[in-house]
Each structure stands twice: as C-alpha cells, then as structure tokens.
C-alpha cells in the first residue's frame, strides 16, 4: 500500500476531492466557531455518521487512538495546572484539583484536535491521491506542484525501505545501532547521509524520466482519472452551508441561554478519555506479553 487511502465503494469516496477539501475547511472553521466543549462534542457526534457512511469505522478508530493520546495529555495536564482555572470541580490524590475554567480550555483544545482529526482522516482515507492531484489542477494549482504532492506519496514507502537497507548496510560495517542516546544521535549520520544521497539520485533520475514522458510539454494535459462535481457534491455542500448557518446562529444568539457545559459533562469526558486510554494501555501490555510468551515458546 502506498498511502493511507482505502478504496471502498461509498458515498463519501464518490464525492469530488474538492468537495471534501471544502468539507475539511468547514470542519476546521466550525471547530473554532463552536468555542464550547459541549457543542464540539455534539459536532463530533454529528461527524461520526459520515465515518460510518464511508465504511471506515475500524481504521478511523485505530488512527483516533493516537489523537486520543494528545487529548488525554492535554485534558489532564491543563485541567490541573492551567493558571486560568479558579473554580474547583473535583480533586484526585488529595492535592491535585481540576478547575472548571482550565477544563473548559483543555476540552476545547482536545475536542478541536479530535474534530479536525476526524475530518482529515475521512478525507485522506477516502480520497485517491491521484484524484486529489487532478482536483487541485482543476483549481488552477500548477501541474508540477500537484505532481510533487502525488509523488511524495509514492516516494515515502521507497524511502522507508531504503532506510532499512542503509541501516542494515551500516550494521554490516559493525555499527551498533542499539546503544545509549549519544551513540544513537551519532548513528544518524551514517544512516542519513547515504539515505539522502540515494533519495537525491532517485529524484534526479526521475526528473529525466519525466522529461522523456513529455512532462514539460506545453499545452493542455489530460488525466486518466476524472473528478467531476455532481448533484451529490452540491447536496453535500448545501448541507455544509446549512450546518454553518446553524453553528453561527447557536454561537451568536444562544450561547448565553444554553449552558450545556456542565461540571458533569467535563468530568465524564475527562474520565471517558482516561478509560479509553486505559484500555489502550491494557491492550498494548497484553500484546507485549503475548509476543513475549510466543517468543519463549518459539525458542
């Protein structure tokens, strides 16, 4: 596999990449308009059906684990130590007090990461990189830029593989890659110097290949993959606009009346992230033990 793209037959996959790019922009914008943890959480809940529609629930949850790590860190550390907090909510281990204002601040930040992360994952996993490139070209982005973007996807797995070979090649010269931190930092040179040269040579060669495939020819280019904005895209875009209108309305007129961000909500979401995080740790430990036991049985 070359990229994070997961080919599936779904409504989301069939949307034009441009629509999806607008969607990502909309989500980013929304996460700032909805400056309230409760509303953001609600927004996250509204986004989830799209993940389901894209048939990407499992890979989505896997990638969310990493973002959750940030969320746990931010919510815990900020909740306790952020100086803007004054009103205590609850206390753990005697001295450490979570304060309302800090928790709001931390939740807004963490949920924003989750919300934007959701949109980004949805976009990357449901959009073929070539489609993204050709959509960009339709937005008058220069061909060469779109190509660089696309070939980056292609070259990453190649570089990763070359890095492994270089590592082995240097180990064959008695380089100890395991060792203390200083040793490891020193090792970066014998790994990165050859890797840089090899990558440079590859890219250099590719530039000749591109010339021979008429890349620099003037005149219109065509593409095998076509992206077209259809009625589905319009419907989706109208949906986005509607949502945006509601958000602005909520924020402008109802923010004073609605007070969804209660102590309970904040506490539960904090504990919720802890619980999920705890599960992740357990799963990790379980796997470690399993491989250890397996390894012993093997030897």
């Amino acid at each position, binding site marked *: *596999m*070359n*990229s994070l793209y997961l080919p599936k037959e779904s409504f989301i996959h069939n949307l034009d990449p441009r629509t999806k790019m607008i969607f990502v922009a909309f989500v980013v914008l929304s996460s700032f308009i909805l400056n309230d943890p409760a509303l953001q959480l609600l927004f996250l809940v509204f986004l989830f059906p799209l993940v389901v529609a894209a048939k990407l629930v499992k890979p989505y949850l896997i990638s969310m684990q990493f973002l959750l790590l940030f969320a746990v860190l931010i919510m815990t550390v900020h909740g306790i130590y952020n100086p803007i907090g004054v009103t205590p909510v609850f206390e753990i281990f005697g001295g450490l007090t979570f304060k309302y204002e800090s928790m709001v601040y931390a939740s807004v930040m963490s949920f924003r990461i989750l919300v934007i992360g959701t949109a980004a994952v949805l976009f990357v996993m449901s959009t*073929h*990189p*070539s489609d993204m490139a050709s959509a960009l070209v339709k937005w008058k982005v220069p061909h060469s830029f779109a*190509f660089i973007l*696309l*070939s980056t*996807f*292609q070259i990453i*797995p*190649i570089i990763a593989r070359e890095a492994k070979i270089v590592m082995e090649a240097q180990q064959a010269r008695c380089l100890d890659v395991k060792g203390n931190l200083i040793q490891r930092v020193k090792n970066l040179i014998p790994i990165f110097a050859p890797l840089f040269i090899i990558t440079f040579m*590859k890219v250099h*060669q*590719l*530039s*000749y*290949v*591109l*010339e*021979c*495939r*008429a*890349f*620099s*020819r*003037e*005149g*219109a*280019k*065509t*593409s*095998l*993959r*076509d992206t077209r904005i259809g009625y589905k895209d319009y419907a989706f875009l109208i949906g986005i606009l509607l949502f945006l209108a509601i958000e602005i309305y909520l924020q402008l007129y109802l923010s004073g009346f609605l007070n969804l961000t209660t102590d309970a909500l904040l506490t539960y979401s904090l504990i919720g992230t802890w619980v999920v995080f705890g599960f992740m740790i357990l799963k990790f430990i379980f796997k470690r033990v399993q491989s250890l036991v397996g390894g012993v049985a093997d030897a």
Partner: protein
Amino acid sequence: MLKNQRAIEVSGLSFLFPDAEVKALRNINFSVDYGEILGIIGPTGAGKSTLAMCINGLVPQVIQGELEGKVYVKGLDVHKGNVAKMSEHVGFVFQEPENQLSQMTIEEEVAFGLGNLGVPREQMEGRIKEALQQVGLLGFEKRSPLALSGGQQQRLAIASVLAMKPTIMIMDEPTSMLDPKGKNEVYDVLRSLKEHGMTGIIIDHEVERIAEYCDKVLVLNEGEEQMFGPSAEVFAQIDTLHQLTMHAPQVTELLHQYNQKNKQDVKLSTSIEEAAAILENAYIKS
C-alpha cells in the same frame, strides 16, 4: 534534402560536459534504418548513455554541455525540437526499473505520458490496454507498481513508453539490474517489438544478448567510435575488442581461441548453432 530514409542519422557528434576537460563524445557518425536494432557496447565510462541521450535530446537540453554535430531522427533535427516533443518519436527506457515509476497504479503509470501529450481520456483506455498487452501485463491495471517484480516493473516502464507510440525505442542497460527471469522477460518483449518492426537502440554489457538481438553494433571507448557495422562483422574483430578490455560472445571467443591454438581460420560466428556446425566441420577435417 535533409529528409531521408534513415530512422536515426548521427554525424560529427561531439559533446563536452561543462566541467570536463576531455570530450565525453568525439566525432560520432552512424545511422540506423527503420526496423533495425542497434547495440551500443563499450567499457564503463565510454559515453554510451550520453550518446543514447543525444538521440532524444536529453543531452544537451536537460543535461547541459557543448554539443557539436547533427542528430536527425526521422528526418527531424533533434536539437531544434525539445525532449517533450521528441517523446512522441523516441521512447527511452532507463536502467533502474523503480526510478521510472511515479504513479499509484499501473494504468495511471501508463496513462501519465498520454496525459502529458494531451491524449483525450476516451482514447486512453485503449492505448493503455494495447501497451500492457505488448509487454504481457494485461490484467494488472489496478495494482501498485511497487508490488511488481523488477522484470515486471521494467516491462511497465516499456509499456509506459510504448503507449506514447514512438517509432524508436532506446533502452539503456534495461536488464542489468534484473535476475535471469526478469532479463528473459524484457528480452522477450524486445523480440516481439522487433518482430513488429520497431527501430531500437540497446545498451548492454551482455554481448551474447547483443549479438543475438541486434542487427548492427557500435563500439564506443572513451567517447570514440571504435567500430560500427553488422554485429557479426564487429564481433569478428575480436582482437580489437580485446584491446578495448571487451570481449565477444563466448562461442566467438571459443572459435577464436580454436583458430589460434590450431593455426586455423574458421569463421567467427556468434550463434551457438552455427558455431557448433563450424567446429564439427573443422574437427572432422582434422
């Protein structure tokens, strides 16, 4: 006047790299007729690749330097056009299969050149299918090029060039990075292209292959043309090859050594069958 029946005509070609003191190519003259395959052989650093790249204009338009002399392809002055324009006439396949890949799927890889030429989408599918068929990769369209073997990747590179419908194909050591199976795959493709009347240039160190597949051979050494002619004639000049630290196909070498040892003068053939017949004949006589 300048138009002629030759597919490739090179006259008085010299090339000097910017920082170099010695010319990489000196006064090269040769021609290739339509339907002919030319093999270029020579030691490392002889200027084989540089010469090949003069024929589609990569030298001196992309790889710059001082060029003298003329290169005509299908009657067109290569150095008045540009590489992109020449790509419709001359296809170029490089040594490293993987460095020629830039797309996510095989069909897109083949379509890439077509897209650059502005071929309408409706025509693309047919041309992709045709090209993949020629190299035996039909049915692989949706796969990732990185998942292919070296031989398959090199065939894909050939298909990507073929789709652009060039009349002339240049291959610069297309099999040197491949295993025997991959080498055979690529040479099988080459054979079928030759049967379809393709004009081509191949650079390869494997003289046995060159002798088998090429009509003419050009021998380069230190930027100078040492020999040029039908392959049988060139490989018969075995002493000259040895002086240039090169060698002829093994069967030719055997015949040559047989001659020397037994003070004979049997014909220096390059094919196994002919060599066997010659030796048998000579042996019976003795």
